């Protein structure tokens, strides 16, 4: 068998050139999962038999000339808060009804399967997509493939690890305040938080009803574009799903950024004391590379970004507490010890606070629309630091400290995390490209153009290189 392709794009070409079969690809990745999952904690359930059956079907289809597109025959992972027909959905919690989501696919999974994707299993999440891993709770502990002592971030940690370590070529994550982008940043790959409503979230356990989105996680912007083209589109079962046209996202990836207008919000995003100099330097270098390729870069100010980040937290605290209140009352100890304070803090806020957060949302949406009226994208760091040591992660501190992701959930904008270097101790660094509503195409075009200039997204963690060899 030929070398396993790193990306969906290359694997799709190899499948059609006859260099590899979907069965060979799927089996090779199942072997990798078998070798690495105990160390990395990426998967909670592996559906090997159904994956191989789907791979055989893909090979037969392609052999007969039936081509379902770029995901046909491609192994993917699904975050364990999204319903899949062939594996239970647990939300990595002892609380969720074991019958929830049983024996049916969420629309986003159904679409990917109909496009020929091979679902390899359920990836580890922070409990109910919040909190930190709890070793006492009985679920796999996700570990950063670049350094097992460091956090893989969250909440879509398993999907991030699986993509970075080459256990799958793409995965689904969810993002309420950064849960696609943070693991993409920590683990060194690309991840897209889509516009609110862009992808139907029916069949996904909620965290923040008005903030949640399901997004693609993959090695490159091109791969994310290929996934999104299948995932996006209206579904009446999700009352927040947007009835907007779905463009051909990969068609817009032409490598060109000449004339692209990039805003760089220095205040808060680049001048915070918490921002690592290595992250700052790498992101600024990335911006310089886009400028050298023809983009027009100018400094802008995003007013009250810090308040918008707080409004995002207050919003999801209220929405999540509404969902969990009765279980917290009756089954407190069944939640993980790091999840309980994250969910129960909603009890410490009041209704006026929630409404005020929605007034901030109106204000911030209007403000950002004005700032971006003559821009195409904003670029910021994705995280303030590289992945923290696992024991140093303090969710309370993180909630109250500087963060660059949640304010975009508050106003529903698309945002792409893109690898942009490595720290001096070998951990990935990431920049964030934020776009206008439903303009994922420009966000992805910017990310793809950058990735034609660099190779960061193709870096493979040593632990995965050893298995591949």
């Amino acid at each position: 068998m030929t070398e396993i392709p790193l990306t969906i794009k290359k694997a799709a070409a190899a499948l059609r050139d006859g260099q590899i079969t979907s069965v060979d690809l799927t089996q090779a990745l199942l072997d990798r999962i078998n070798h690495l999952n105990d160390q990395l904690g990426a998967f909670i359930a592996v559906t090997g038999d159904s994956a191989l059956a789907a791979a055989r079907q893909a090979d037969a289809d392609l052999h007969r000339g039936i081509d379902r597109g770029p995901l046909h025959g491609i192994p993917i992972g699904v975050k364990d808060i999204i319903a899949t027909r062939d594996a239970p959905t647990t939300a990595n919690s002892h609380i969720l009804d074991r019958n929830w989501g049983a024996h049916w696919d969420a629309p986003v999974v159904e679409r990917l399967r109909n496009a020929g994707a091979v679902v390899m299993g359920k990836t580890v999440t922070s409990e109910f997509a919040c909190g930190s891993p709890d070793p006492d709770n009985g679920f796999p502990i996700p570990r950063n493939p670049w350094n097992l002592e460091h956090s893989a971030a969250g909440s879509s940690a398993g999907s991030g690890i699986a993509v970075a370590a080459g256990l799958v070529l793409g995965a689904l994550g969810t993002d309420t305040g950064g849960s696609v982008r943070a693991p993409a940043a920590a683990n060194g790959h690309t991840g897209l938080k889509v516009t609110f409503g862009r992808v139907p979230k029916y069949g996904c356990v909620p965290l923040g009803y008005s903030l949640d989105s399901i997004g693609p996680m993959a090695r490159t912007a091109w791969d994310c574009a290929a996934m999104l083209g299948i995932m996006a589109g209206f579904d009446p079962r999700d009352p927040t799903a947007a009835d907007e046209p779905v463009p051909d996202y990969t068609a817009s990836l032409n490598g060109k950024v000449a004339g692209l207008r990039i805003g760089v919000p220095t205040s808060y995003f680049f001048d915070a004391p918490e921002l690592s100099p290595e992250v700052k330097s790498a992101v600024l270098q990335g911006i310089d590379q886009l400028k050298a390729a023809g983009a027009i870069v100018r400094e802008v100010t995003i007013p009250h970004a810090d308040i918008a980040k707080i409004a995002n937290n207050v919003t999801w605290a209220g929405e999540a507490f509404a969902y969990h209140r009765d279980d917290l009352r009756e089954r407190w100890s069944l939640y993980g010890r790091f999840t309980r304070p994250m969910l129960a803090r909603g009890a410490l806020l009041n209704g006026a606070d929630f409404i005020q957060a929605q007034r901030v949302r109106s204000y911030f949406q209007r403000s950002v629309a004005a700032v971006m009226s003559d821009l195409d994208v904003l670029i910021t760091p994705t995280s303030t630091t590289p992945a923290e040591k696992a024991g140093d992660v303090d969710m309370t501190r993180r909630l109250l400290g500087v963060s660059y992701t949640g304010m975009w959930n508050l106003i529903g904008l698309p945002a792409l995390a893109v690898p942009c270097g490595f720290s001096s101790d070998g951990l990935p660094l990431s920049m964030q490209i934020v776009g206008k509503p439903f303009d994922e195409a420009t966000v992805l075009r910017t990310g793809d153009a950058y990735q034609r200039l660099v190779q960061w997204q193709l870096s493979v963690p040593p632990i995965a290189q050893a298995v591949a060899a």
Partner: protein
Amino acid sequence: MTDVPTTVRSLLDAAQLKMSEEEFQLFVRMYPALRTGADSMYIAETRYEEPALVFDPSWKDFA
């Protein structure tokens, strides 16, 4: 004005959340920053702002 532990105890009791003393102390430590953060949202710019209770990310009203 009540002290922080009393306030936190009242709020958690009202929500009928029962926890260990150690966890209660975590909420006591968390509360001041949480309250300060929530209070910081009441900025002058939102004085006449309508809440986004029906959320539409399209910006069509700002075109």
